[in-house]
């Protein structure tokens, strides 16, 4: 039983980027609890100023290697909105398809490579190569399938080339579409095996009610497009995000923090699941049920399970999208839409693997960026992570220091924080209106 506790984990491993965790407990009371981001800031909003309308998607893709498709799409959507460009339905379907597979590769990376070692009591995925080769092989196969789909549609797995404003510089061939469908169909046995493995994991018990925010659509389980929706019952058009959100700079972090109406909130797979459960495929719903995940779920640790359920959904929905694209017939004439540069402001909102991602650009009449604002999911989760820790730590003080440290690390890891992205991350604040 620990009355006093000093935990400092620096740097926290198996997260993308550099973050530190500091907890001081004295006489069973938390004196200090901090998840600090000392990662170097990068100044993307400054880099973008003055750049031509066709460059921001290439520049902002480099915010994050793991979610470069998400940044590319948010950027493209913001610019298309600002310049009044309407991409074809074919373009949107292909974007949704590539989008699914960045989400799959990212979720696989997190569930199997970064989070799973904690459940198997090891420090990384490397020892699992010997002890649980099947887990590693399933992960590598599923990740490769997803990356190959991103490669086929985007031209490469990290920082896609073909996804540009107006459409695609090059379309996949019909043969490639059929090949992708075969790859997807071949992945189901691995999903079944994953289900058996995940069922054996002991997910820590924890519950803390918070607000969950994601995008939401009337038809899709929204990743690429939708309104911004909260489990607190409000829904707004994505162009009006500033009605609800505010960012501010905090001293110990290069990442700005984000608030909604003074409340902290959570974004990411669990938030999407809680808001959009009904839009999942029946198959994905079945997996959720098998793994004990029900909406609304207030256990942050279950974010890992929500990520897996999303993998199933993305694979199901990709097959539907491929059938639709093939049925409509791939049309070179619809690959690109005409672009006329001009002045305007546009907001692009998507669900990055780690949650709500907002790009907001203002262009001058020469089609050059005058002002850019980027709000990143980990920045939104930051305050919620600290609240979760405050709720969790007092309940586990009877455990050993090592166990407390591990449980806290697992909690942060459950968010799949992406610190490279968030080094612009301000605390984002929701406003009560």
């Amino acid at each position, binding site marked *: 039983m620990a009355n006093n506790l000093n935990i400092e984990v620096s740097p926290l491993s198996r997260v993308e980027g550099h973050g530190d965790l500091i907890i001081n407990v004295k006489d069973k009371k938390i004196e200090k609890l901090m998840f600090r981001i000392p990662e170097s800031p990068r*100044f993307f909003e400054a880099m973008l100023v003055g750049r031509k309308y066709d460059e921001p998607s290439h520049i902002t893709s480099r915010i994050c290697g793991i979610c470069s498709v998400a940044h590319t799409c948010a950027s493209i959507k913001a610019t298309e909105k600002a310049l009044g460009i309407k991409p074809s339905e074919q373009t949107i379907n292909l974007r949704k398809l590539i989008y699914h597979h960045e989400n799959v590769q990212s979720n696989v*990376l997190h569930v199997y490579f970064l989070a799973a070692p904690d459940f198997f009591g090891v420090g990384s995925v490397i020892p699992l*190569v010997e002890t649980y080769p099947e887990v590693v092989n399933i992960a590598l196969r599923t990740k490769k399938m997803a990356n190959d789909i991103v490669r086929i549609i985007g031209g490469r797995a*990290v920082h896609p080339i073909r996804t540009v404003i107006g459409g695609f510089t090059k379309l996949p061939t019909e043969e490639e579409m059929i090949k992708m469908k075969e790859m997807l169909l071949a992945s189901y046995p691995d999903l079944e095996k994953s289900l058996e493995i995940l069922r054996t994991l002991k997910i820590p018990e924890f519950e803390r009610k918070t607000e969950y925010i994601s995008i939401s659509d009337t038809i899709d389980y929204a990743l690429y497009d939708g309104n911004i929706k909260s489990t607190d019952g409000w829904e707004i058009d994505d162009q009006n995000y500033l009605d609800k959100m505010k960012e501010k700079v905090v001293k110990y972090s290069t990442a700005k923090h984000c608030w909604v109406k003074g409340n902290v909130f959570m974004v990411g797979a669990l938030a999407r699941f809680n808001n959009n459960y009904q839009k999942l495929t029946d198959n994905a719903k079945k997996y959720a049920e098998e793994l004990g995940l029900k909406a609304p779920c207030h256990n942050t640790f279950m974010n890992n399970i929500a990520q897996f359920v999303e993998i199933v959904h993305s694979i199901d929905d990709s097959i539907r999208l491929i059938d639709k694209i093939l049925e409509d017939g791939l049309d070179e004439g619809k690959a690109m839409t005409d672009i006329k540069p001009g002045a305007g402001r546009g907001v692009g909102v998507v669900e990055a693997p780690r949650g709500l991602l907002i790009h907001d650009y203002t262009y001058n009449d020469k089609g050059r960026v005058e002002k850019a604002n980027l709000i990143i999911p980990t920045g939104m989760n930051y305050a919620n992570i600290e609240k979760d820790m405050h709720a969790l730590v007092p309940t586990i003080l009877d455990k050993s220091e090592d166990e407390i440290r591990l449980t806290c690390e697992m909690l942060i890891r459950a968010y799949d924080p992406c610190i490279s992205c968030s080094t612009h991350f301000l605390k984002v604040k929701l406003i009560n209106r």
Partner: protein
Amino acid sequence: MSKPKVGIFGFTGCGGCQLEILNLEDQLLDLVNAIEIVHFTELVTEYSDTYEIALVEGSITTKHGVERIKKIGNIAKTIVAIGACAVTGGLNCLKNLYGLEKAKELVYGDKKDWIDSIEVKPIDTYVKVDYYSRGCPPNRFEIVDIVRSLIVGRKPEIPNYPVCVECKRNGNTCVYELGITCMGPISRAGCNSRCPNSVSGCEACRGVIDEPNVNAQKDLLAEYGLTVEDIMEGFNLYNACKGKTIEQKGK
């Protein structure tokens, strides 16, 4: 043969180069078997400060970063810079172009003095770099080739010919014919001309070859009614730090 101890380190960047190592998929387990990874914060909790080879991603942009890279320089026998940010400073250098103080003020406002940020530099400003795996992202197979070469004691072969060579080999239509500008004639190959393959112009993310035929690039631009200035903005995306203009490169 004992396995070389390898550290994989990230500085300021997007993590994409380290991700490309994980994206090796088919070769990843062989790579993990051939080396002993002793430091890789993104993937592994345990770490040690004894290693022979350091693979370094990212640019140096903070005082803390300068200390860290110097420490790595003191430990590693061989340093490999992976990716544009480590090799040339990459896209991060757009901050220098904008102006450091101005950038701090724009993003962090009156809180700008809280932020540790210095002018962006590639890692060879502070340590001796033995090999460069260029590009944004780098070619993951080239990273494997460099590591393999280091294990067997052979010098890795890094192309020093322009992207046009690969592009022609791939049978692409020259993108200039389609009205797209391209840095291919003077940019270093090794990417398998991946941007022109996707009907996009090369952005020189692997930098310029050692002795570029600048006149050929100028002639090509002239043929399509363009000037060097027209393409410099694109060239600056990944090459603003090394600061040489195309004119200087020719000298």
